[in-house]
């Protein structure tokens, strides 16, 4: 087995080549470290390409009233005050720089008339804030950073003659285990080439996880096959913590027909640019679903909502632009009440509200997507949409400033795989900015950690390597075991039905029972064929990760007895301030999963002062509120 083991040495290993991973790699390489990027797919295909709407950054190009403070406030409100406030602060402050930096790499955003980066409205953002390129912003971001990495490699080639001397991309490699020294410090990672099935070992004192989310644990999802919670599970098995795992965002508008594309995203920009949601009776139902905490910030009448598109300063925004959790729940309720569309969604109508030319100009890829996949012309007909699993707010517990993962020296995490930044619900547009801000911080953090080690390198025992190899080959050893595809489908169905948008204790308990059963069966999987590019084998290995992560989601969801953001309990429908200050921490416990509560650090006073006392009263307990300094009234005059 060892004869075929390839081995590489690096300073920093980035697992994941989406936005966060590439930005981390750029930062680590610019800090002068030898950096490797591991891609599960080909370079440049990461799921970030699917992001449509834009990158939230308070550049104030369209409305100069915008500032990091307003962005911070919107982010905290969106996350229902469960966010790591320090992450939200860093994010709001640094996002503009990260966006401008992309222009120096060659990005071409849409422009304002005075030549700056144009910014668009989006759900939960008080001002037009999303830098965008039509509705393919994620593609622009990935391509820009991909090309920046190529340009860094060209620099290295000029210097050393070898473009890969300091920055190398390993495409189509999957990491199955992190390697640690006996003290638990990161020593590298173990994985396989998808193409050949051969094993590969990376020795590196710092590993940045940037593996994205967990959507493939759910049946209806906008996520691709790569989203199997690899980073979450790697961190868990390495001894780190996951935080906020009960919060899973269901994007309100996914395609519902045809069946093969069910779940594929319909961008929020459709609503930002004038699209409205209607039920089968033709009613614009969102006006009935504005929750108390948002009353006063959203229009009460269709007329006012419609005026807002052209005059946002004197009118309130339409309720179609409420945060995603609210809209997803509203659609869910309408469908359950029997007012859904023929294929079990609701109607998203832009055809009757905007001219065809405008739709084509602003939403070209949506038009293309519906035309090609569903044979629907969105300039003429309404779309049918319904909620789809989109994003997990929960993830690896990290230090906000360095992105260092809890309890495992040398482990870092950034992007969707990290937790805390978005609290209980992420605002649209905050994900791409999160990738950039914390990707850069993770790269820098990892570089600082490695430089701090001096020449010391944690060493891994051979037994650890052998165990990793044996675990990866197990599915080939088993005779007469189960088909991984069948197991995967059962797990997706379980998560979708029992730990989906609306949850109850009884259903979650049933899900946990089924997950136990699936875990036991997953010990005995059989795959046919050999190791060369074998998707059945790959799925068998990914299943282990999905099951661990699903269990975290279910256990945390059972424990949190309230409804907040991406976690809705039918048996506890209200948001409860007593749950606000508590994070649920998921960690490995032998072969199982343990979840415990952990109090959150209190928010800094100057940040608290950005909110009105009235608003804080919606989230904080009376005792917490009493402790807030009385000067807590914000002064930037933006109103809300």
């Amino acid at each position, binding site marked *: 087995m060892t004869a075929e083991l390839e081995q590489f040495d690096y300073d920093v290993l980035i697992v994941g080549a989406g936005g966060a991973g590439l930005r981390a790699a750029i930062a680590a390489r610019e800090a002068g470290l030898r950096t490797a990027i591991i891609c599960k797919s080909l370079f440049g295909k990461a799921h970030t390409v699917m992001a449509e709407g834009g990158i939230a950054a308070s550049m104030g190009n369209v409305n100069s009233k915008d500032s990091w403070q307003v962005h911070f406030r919107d982010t905290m409100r969106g996350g229902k005050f469960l966010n790591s406030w320090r992450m939200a602060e860093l994010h709001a402050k640094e996002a503009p720089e990260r966006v*401008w930096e992309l222009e120096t*790499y060659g990005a071409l955003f849409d422009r304002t008339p005075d030549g700056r980066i144009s910014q668009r409205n989006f759900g939960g953002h008080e001002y037009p804030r999303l830098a965008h390129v039509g509705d393919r912003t994620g593609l622009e971001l990935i391509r820009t950073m991909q*090309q920046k990495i190529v340009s860094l*490699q060209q620099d290295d080639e000029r210097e050393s003659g070898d473009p890969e001397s300091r920055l190398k991309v390993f495409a189509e490699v999957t990491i199955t285990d992190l390697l640690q020294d006996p003290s638990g410090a990161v020593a590298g990672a173990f994985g396989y080439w998808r193409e050949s099935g051969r094993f590969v070992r990376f020795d590196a004192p710092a590993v940045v996880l940037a593996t994205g989310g967990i959507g493939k644990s759910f049946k209806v999802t906008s996520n691709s096959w790569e989203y199997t919670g690899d980073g979450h599970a790697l961190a868990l098995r390495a001894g780190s913590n996951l935080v906020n795992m009960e919060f899973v965002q269901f994007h309100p508008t996914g395609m519902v027909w045809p069946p093969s594309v069910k779940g594929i995203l319909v961008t929020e920009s459709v609503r930002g640019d004038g699209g409205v949601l209607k039920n089968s009776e033709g009613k614009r139902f969102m006006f009935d679903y504005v929750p108390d905490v948002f009353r006063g910030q959203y229009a009460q009448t269709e007329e006012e909502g419609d005026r807002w598109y052209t005059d946002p300063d004197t009118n309130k925004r339409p309720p179609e632009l409420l945060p995603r959790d609210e809209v997803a729940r509203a659609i869910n309720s309408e469908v359950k009440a029997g007012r859904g569309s023929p294929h079990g969604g609701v109607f998203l109508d832009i055809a009757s509200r905007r001219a065809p030319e405008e739709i084509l100009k602003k939403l070209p890829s949506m038009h*293309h*997507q519906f035309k090609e996949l*569903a044979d629907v012309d969105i300039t003429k007909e309404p779309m049918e949409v319904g909620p789809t699993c989109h994003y997990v707010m929960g993830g690896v517990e990290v230090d906000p400033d360095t992105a260092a993962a809890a309890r495992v020296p040398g482990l870092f995490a950034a992007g969707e795989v990290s937790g805390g930044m978005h609290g209980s619900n992420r605002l649209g547009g905050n994900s791409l900015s999160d990738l950039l801000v914390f990707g850069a911080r993770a790269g820098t953090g990892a570089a600082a950690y490695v430089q701090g080690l001096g020449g010391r390198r944690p060493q891994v025992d051979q037994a650890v390597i052998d165990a990793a190899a044996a675990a990866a080959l197990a599915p080939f050893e088993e005779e007469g075991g189960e088909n991984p595809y069948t197991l995967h489908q059962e797990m997706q169905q379980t998560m979708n039905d029992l730990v989906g948008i609306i949850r109850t204790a009884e259903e979650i308990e049933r899900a946990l029972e089924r997950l136990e059963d699936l875990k036991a069966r997953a010990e005995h999987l059989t795959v046919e064929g050999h190791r*060369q590019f074998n*998707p059945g*084998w790959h799925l068998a290995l990914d299943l282990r990760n999905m099951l661990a992560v699903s269990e975290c989601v279910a256990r945390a969801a059972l424990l949190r007895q309230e409804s907040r953001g991406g976690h809705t309990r039918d048996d506890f429908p209200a948001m409860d301030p007593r749950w606000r200050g508590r994070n649920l921490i998921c960690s490995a416990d032998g072969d199982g999963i343990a979840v415990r509560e952990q109090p959150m650090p209190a928010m800094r006073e100057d940040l608290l002062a950005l909110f009105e006392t009235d608003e804080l009263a919606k989230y904080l307990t009376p005792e917490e509120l009493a402790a807030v300094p009385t000067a807590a009234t914000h002064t930037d005059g933006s109103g809300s």
Partner: protein
Amino acid sequence: MSYDARFRVWRGDADGGELVDYTVEVNDGEVVLDIIHRLQATQSGDLAVRWNCKAGKCGSCSAEINGMPRLLCMTRMSTFTEAETITVTPLRAFPVIRDLVTDVSFNYAKARQIPAFAPPDLAPGEYRMQQVDVERSQEFRKCIECFLCQDTCHVVRDHEDNKEAFAGPRFLIRAAELDMHPLDARDDRADFAREEQGIGMCNITKCCTEVCPEHIKITDNAIIPMKERVAGRRYDPLVWLGTKIGLRRG
């Protein structure tokens, strides 16, 4: 609404392979990738195929369907009759790895040869560009790098020995994108396209444009304008003379 369709899928690797016949269920609204996935899940768990987004945005599931380069996820089954046998093979301009998966490293090697965007002497945040000036390059930045254009281009598809000298349509639009970028500081993109990327090998037969799933007008909007820019700098004595005596800048 479902029926059994006849499929022929290429199975094999670099040492050889064959078209294997399958009969597989097809449901209303499905695309070819769904059928490939059904084959994986029910008949042949080790059938190798690349795919990611399933929405025509990542450009992973490139293959050839009935001989034409296409994305598996964007080819609806309703475009075929129920009686038709549908043949699926890997891309045929690149070495095969296994089944429908090919080695597309040629493209990444070509990408690395193009000089990167050369930033202007401006601080981040100080870039100013007009929408009309960025639109041409934005069209080319829609490219999802599915490499169908590279696959169909006869310059390399039919002539392995041209791979060294020819960058392919994907990277000629990259050259155009940079040359038309309002703030790119280099002015030798056209020379590079001629000398290093082999733009002269393109005989503008437009198959790249025909297969582009993003409907980028590769030939009309990128390659021909670049050929004209090359002609302007290289083959137009009037322009050459004008540049020499300082009347116009290239």
